[in-house]
């Protein structure tokens, strides 16, 4: 077998960071927060400069996606494809892409999947809620996460009663949502499962009779929701008594559980570390994370404060952070579509994610999506290249000029191979293909 690439025996090459220049800093922050950019968006941000761009990203109120009429479908099953396309259309066209980037981050963190939830309306609501809450504070976020209808189904809290608690949500609330493994005991899991019990799904606005089998005249009565709702707390299902949780004993309700979690130093560290790994560098050092965590906790867990601290930290623009993050499949595809000036690709994007390992509303497990090197395999590199091929074929009539693409999309920092191939490329089509299929473009 031939043609297997082997790393050379010479010194390891690294990218030369261009982040000493203002324009490179602006391009990097847009790549990491906004699914890339159209030429107009880039020009506008370049004239604002890095600092004002960061302020604008954080302070601009999210534009809501259009209302999805299908959400009132009786029974709530209207197909995940429709939901994916609805969100991707918004990612591709919104004027506040940072809100979508944060919603995607929250979707991977406070994750739920449509298969287990079994109700696309609830998944739709969850997306709306995550967007609205993403830049608030962790305390109110956790309250909303706990009573979110999709989450109530996904982690079985809607099934949990004080008499017979279900541990699923209780465990993941601490392990994956706030504190991380090793910072609580199995007894804490059992105790907070009791304290959290009592939540139920909301009551539908009405019911509709739907014909499910015309030939045999079989009908079903299905719930209809005409407006977004939260879970409801039923005190009769709750646990009445004292629990010993995270070192303290006494009666405890949902808010009490959340407040006790927020009193643990591990919580701010866990969240800050995850944010740093998603937005700054694959392996943030402990002192950096601790600094962010302290800022976060002091601000009463304010997400704007945390994200501002992250983007303005020296580490964000350090040479050591340059190209240390791999674009998620969604980021890669939306960025490609934006670069090609082709917002009509949402259907293609919705279908192409699974081969690269990311299908929206369908994470692999309760840990959400993996990061960075996990996105790179023999399967995913082929799928990414194929996406570029197909996306370019779909916009063949009006491909933008590629002459600036290596600079605006790749910071002008190219591997020798990429540079060679671009130099040899016959036309814009070839230049765009090399730019978008290159390893450089897979990084952010």
């Amino acid at each position, binding site marked *: 077998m031939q043609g297997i690439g082997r790393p050379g025996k010479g010194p390891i090459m690294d990218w030369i960071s261009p982040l000493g220049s203002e324009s490179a800093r602006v391009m990097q922050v847009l790549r990491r927060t906004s699914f890339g950019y159209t030429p107009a968006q880039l020009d506008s941000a370049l004239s604002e400069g890095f600092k004002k761009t960061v302020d604008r990203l954080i302070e601009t109120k999210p534009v809501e996606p259009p209302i999805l009429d299908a959400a009132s479908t009786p029974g709530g099953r209207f197909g995940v494809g429709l939901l994916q396309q609805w969100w991707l259309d918004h990612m591709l066209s919104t004027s506040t892409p940072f809100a979508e980037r944060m919603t995607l981050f929250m979707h991977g963190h406070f994750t739920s999947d449509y298969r287990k939830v079994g109700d696309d309306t609830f998944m739709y609501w969850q997306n709306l809620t995550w967007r609205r809450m993403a830049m608030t504070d962790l305390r109110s976020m956790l309250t909303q996460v706990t009573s979110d209808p999709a989450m109530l189904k996904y982690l079985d809290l809607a099934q949990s009663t004080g008499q017979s608690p*279900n541990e699923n949500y209780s465990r993941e609330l601490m392990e994956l949502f706030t504190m991380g493994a090793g910072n609580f005991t*199995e007894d804490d899991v059992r105790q907070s499962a009791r304290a959290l019990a009592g939540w139920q799904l909301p009551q539908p606005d009405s019911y509709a009779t739907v014909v499910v089998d015309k030939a045999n005249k079989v009908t079903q009565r299905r719930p209809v929701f005409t407006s977004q709702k939260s879970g409801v707390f039923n005190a009769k299902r709750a646990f009445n008594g004292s629990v010993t949780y995270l070192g303290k004993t006494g009666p405890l309700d949902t808010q009490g559980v959340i407040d006790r979690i927020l009193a643990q130093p591990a919580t701010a560290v866990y969240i800050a570390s995850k944010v740093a790994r998603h937005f700054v560098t694959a392996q943030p050092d402990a002192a950096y994370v601790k600094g962010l965590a302290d800022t976060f906790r002091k601000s009463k867990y304010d997400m704007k404060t945390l994200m501002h601290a992250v983007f303005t930290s020296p580490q964000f623009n350090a040479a050591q952070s340059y190209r240390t993050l791999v674009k998620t499949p969604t980021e890669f595809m939306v960025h490609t579509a934006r670069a090609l000036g082709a917002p009509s690709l949402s259907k293609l994007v919705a279908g192409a994610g699974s081969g690269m390992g990311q299908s929206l509303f369908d994470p692999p497990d309760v840990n959400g999506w993996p990061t960075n090197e996990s996105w790179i395999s023999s399967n995913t590199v082929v799928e990414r290249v194929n996406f570029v091929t197909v996306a370019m074929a779909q916009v063949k009539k009006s491909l933008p000029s590629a002459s600036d693409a290596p600079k605006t999309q790749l910071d002008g920092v190219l591997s020798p*191979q990429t540079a060679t191939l671009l130099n040899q490329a016959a036309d814009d089509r070839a230049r765009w293909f090399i730019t978008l299929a290159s390893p450089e473009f897979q990084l952010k």
Partner: protein
Amino acid sequence: MTREIGINQLKRRDFLKAGLVFGAGAAGLAAGYAAVPDAFARAVYAAKREGVANDNILVMIQLAGGNDGLRTVVPIADPVLHDLRPKLAGAMVSKALPLNSQWGLNHNLGAIKGLWDKGKVAIVQGVGYPNPTFSHFESIRIWETGDPTRRQVNGWLGRTLATAYDSNGHPLTGCACGTTNVPGALRDLQATMTVIQDQKKFGFSGGSEVEAAVGALYKGTPGIYGALFDTAMATATSTISTLRTSAASYQPMADYTDKVKLVYSSKNQLAAALQLAAELIVTGTGVKLLHVTLGGFDTHYTELNRHDDLMGYLDTAVGAFYQDLAAHGMADKVLIATWSEFGRRPKENASGGTDHGAAAPLLLIGNPVKGGMYGDSPNLTSLDKTGNLPYSVDFRSVYQEILAGHLGAGSNQILGASFDRIPFLAAPVAAV
């Protein structure tokens, strides 16, 4: 367009003039730029030691989410089961396929029961490890790395690839089928392996021109992910060409059609993944270590139908896979083993499901197996303080037997220690 040019032949100043900057090695480091962090260090392909002598093949099937052991291998004669599981026990006992007076297989495991009757299934009871964690992710990592102390970062199969096989130049030696990402068990930066989600889609839609272009593009890529990108692309182009040949010469000799409609997590196309595994095996691609995953076993809620469906899905896929291998004369070479991060709690919860548990049985299937029950049978009256079944067999004992007895690989080196033997192989190839 795809002609390759060495770096010294490039007109470097032309690119600098155009505002382009090269990734650079020594120059970059001298200028104070980051060295590559160790964890992502470029794969170093050391000269391989003696490769393993035999041509045996291992297929690991991950039952992800925590498979309910008591519902897989059912203690049909134990009255305590009915006390612990008033909702779930009735049907699972009455419908079970009896193996002996005490134990039965889940009623949807008919094909596997047929293989048991022929002495081709070993059940190892009570498999686990000390101080079990109830976190999916910690426990998955422990099983994947073979290290309950959580220091090891590479997967046990990845280390096997790296130490016992020459995977460099042979990226199909290790292969994950039916997934997009490298499973943790196969991960090791010193080993090359292939990931194929769906063979029909595995190829470049732009044809040979695109294949040649990206082959040239993904070479000598700088940065911490450079080697991963380059290796992934080289693996892909090489494997695509291998699969072109193998697909043309493979005729399935079994029915892989799903006989069970999954109510949950139908994303795990186990049958399709195992059919791809069969193709790779019977067409002589050199594949040795395969990994496939079936998810959906985290049955906290209404476990009854869901777990039975998953068992049926496993059974259909494994039954067809074995039949296909046997018809192609390859069944003597292939050992199939299941694993899951933990079992489930013997006592059911109020949602008609079960919470995270500890020890559980493992199934080893195929002609290399000496059929029967191994390990101490779980005792439902002596649960630990968390209400779970204590383990009687360290999971690394099973790994050891697979590595040394089936693959002929150095299990001591790979696992870092030796463990009690579980003699589930009919003719182990090397003494441990």
